[in-house]
């Protein structure tokens, strides 16, 4: 029988190793918990979250030209865009926009398909809701974001 394992046992080397691991873990650098509402995590630049329909910041008009490319690109077919040609400007304008967030898997294909950069998956990650109905986003919800439920008076 070799002497090393016995000596390891007698001097409790393994136990001391374990103790040193837990001792080092107390360092503040190791801490991973975030105090969520007070401390907000920084998500990556390419994080795909809450969808948004961009508007022209100067005129306030929707950038969407109702080309339907996003609806075609969507593997879940959760985007339904209906438009009508405006007889005056000869441009197609949005009549109704629906985005079913409950079926979305945030693949970002719609974003890539969009020819005018109107549809964008933002870095907003707070999408929890109390009802499924709220997950059917219309044009207003997509352009201005969802109004969060406020509980304080």
């Amino acid at each position, binding site marked *: 029988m070799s002497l090393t394992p016995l000596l390891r046992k007698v001097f409790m080397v393994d136990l001391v190793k374990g103790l040193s691991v837990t*001792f080092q*873990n*107390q360092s503040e650098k190791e801490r991973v918990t975030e105090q969520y509402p*007070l401390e907000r995590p920084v998500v990556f630049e390419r994080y795909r979250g809450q969808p948004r329909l961009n508007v022209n910041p100067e005129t306030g008009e929707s950038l969407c030209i109702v080309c339907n490319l996003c609806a075609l690109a969507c593997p879940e077919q959760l985007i339904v865009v209906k438009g009508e040609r405006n007889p005056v400007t000869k441009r197609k304008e949005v009549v109704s926009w629906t985005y079913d967030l409950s079926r979305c898997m945030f693949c970002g294909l719609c974003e890539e398909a969009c020819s005018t950069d109107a549809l964008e998956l933002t870095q907003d990650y707070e999408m929890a809701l109390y009802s499924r109905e709220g997950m059917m986003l219309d044009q207003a919800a997509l352009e201005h974001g969802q109004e969060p439920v406020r509980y304080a008076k």
Partner: protein
Amino acid sequence: MLEAIKSYLNSAVTPGEAGSQLWAAIYIIAITLGVSLSVIAMNWLERKILAHMQIRLGPMRVGPHGLMQPFADALKLLIKEDIIPNNADKLVFWMAPVVVTMTAFTTFLVVPFGRTHAVTDMNIGVLFMLGISSLGVLGIIMAGWASNSKYPLMGSLRSSAQMVSYEIAMGLAIVCAVLMTSLQTGTGTLSMIGIVESQYAQGTWFIFKFFPLGFIAFIVFAIAMIAETNRAPFDLPEAESELVAGFHTEYSGFRWSLFFLAEYTAMLGVSSIAVTLWLGGWLRPFPNALGGPTWDLAFSLIPGLTVLAMAAGTFLGTIRMPKIVQMRAQVISLGVVAVLLALVGLFLLLPGVRGRVQDIFWFVAKVACFMYMYIWYRGTFPRYRFDQLMKVGWKVLLPIGLGVLILTAVVGMRQELLAAIVGGAR
């Protein structure tokens, strides 16, 4: 009345020895309050340190850094419904937490926080502490039996088996220390104060006496005392993954908090035994080698400076708190804590105070190290299986304890032995 108060103030012995009942009562109240407060502090510290070891934050919301969490918990426990199971033995069920708490607190009668800071100096101090603290297991068995439920019964059975096995190793280790008191000075003593004084007289803490014999005895005691107080990794009586909560499964509210209080008080109690027997009790580091008025002054400043350093750390924490509106109340209260700590630190630096509190400080600091070790072990080691527990107790600690005891006796009596052998040869 005034005479009774004054009569004790200048004496250099404990109230028990001086025969001052009033001061004994004051000491008892002060120690009870202090121990309860440190149990509350331990509750917070354990949750925080354990969380940090597991890379978590621990309580953060109730007060700054969760400082008010134990008070919130205590309030919750006090207003909880008090349930006694239908088939429980009501009287015994009611008695069990009382027995556990009482025995845990009674041990502090003989704990010397300083030469004058003990309720009394009992000439069988160590024996008294051991006897009373082993009575605590009676309360645990009562709780398990009276609950009339299988998990508590299993827990208390485990507890009694564990106590029986580890008490022997513990006793052997203690006898080692008691043997050491009789060496060189000639007269052995069981009194807690006497043991510390003989460490001062022999010029060494018993942990370094006959190195490594004293150290091994200390290790045996340190392992056995964790088992005695049912703490991780020997927490089989209350193994939550196996027995729900062990012997206090059926307890709720205030009764449960009494068990909690008793557990931590017992931890403090056995830690004080270990400190008294091996780490020189209230003695400051190097009382003999670094003697003289200069060193005395330097060491007497340490308690105040330590508290001031804690205050500085708290102040640093206050500065580093997130600066948002929701946290303003917490930042302000943490600042108040820092100021209070600084005031306490300055108070401890006063010339009249620092001489009196110095020995209390060193004793408490040593016990605090033990309490940290308890949390550290709990954060590190997985629980032993029952047969492993028994194996450690009977096959490892008991033989080591016996061997150390015999070796201590032989080494201590080496001159007499040599003389006898030489004389016999002649």
